[in-house]
């Protein structure tokens, strides 16, 4: 139910993982590569990960969501390597009996993932490239290059 992959993510396969007859709500989040960032045109992205630890962190986040929103089913996939504009870098699928828990759990998973899963994004532009750093644990903007 958690996956780190070098290959394109299949949304239908992700949805199938959380399908359940008692689930009346299905919420998905699809994180897509966009063509601009920080006022610059982005040509493509490269994601690097510390894969074994990233998998553990994804599972930790999943278990936390299952505990906090009982009865939900949660699947998470993150892609690594080179991604083109419009491709999915991360996909989260959550099902539950009612919509509130599914929305909340999905939001929690993506927000937590962005601060704790050891994966880094490098933005490539027409005239260069730069590693993007997240926020340090103290909540201050990270050092930039």
């Amino acid at each position, binding site marked *: 139910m958690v996956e780190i992959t070098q290959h394109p993510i299949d949304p239908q396969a992700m949805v199938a993982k959380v399908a359940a007859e008692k689930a009346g709500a299905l919420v998905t989040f699809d994180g897509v590569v966009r063509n601009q960032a920080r006022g610059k045109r982005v040509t493509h992205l490269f994601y690097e990960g*510390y894969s*074994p630890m990233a998998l*553990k962190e994804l599972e930790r986040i999943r278990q936390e969501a299952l505990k906090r929103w009982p009865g939900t089913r949660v699947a998470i996939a993150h892609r690594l390597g080179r991604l083109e504009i419009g491709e999915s870098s991360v996909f989260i699928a959550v099902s539950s009996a009612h919509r509130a828990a599914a929305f909340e759990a999905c939001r929690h998973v993506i927000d937590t993932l*962005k601060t704790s*899963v050891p994966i*880094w994004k490098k933005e490539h532009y027409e005239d260069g490239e730069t*590693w993007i750093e997240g926020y*340090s644990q103290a909540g201050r903007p*990270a*050092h930039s290059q």
Partner: protein
Amino acid sequence: MIRVRFFATLRDLAGRGEMDIDVQPGATVAELFGNLERQFPGIARYRPILLVAVNEEYSGWETQLADGDEVAFFPPVSGGSA
């Protein structure tokens, strides 16, 4: 022997993603990083924001290391998307 791993900017600054290094028994993560700073001076300015993992779990600078441990140093993470 400790296996050291660098990711993202840190990998670029060190010019390598992993290496093995000997440390004194009971040395801390901070002491290990001190050794690495001498070898790769470019990484020193990153210390205030770096995250540390020992054996694939988030850890602190005062953690004592044992033979065979894997220690990863990396900048704040930036996975996911918008």
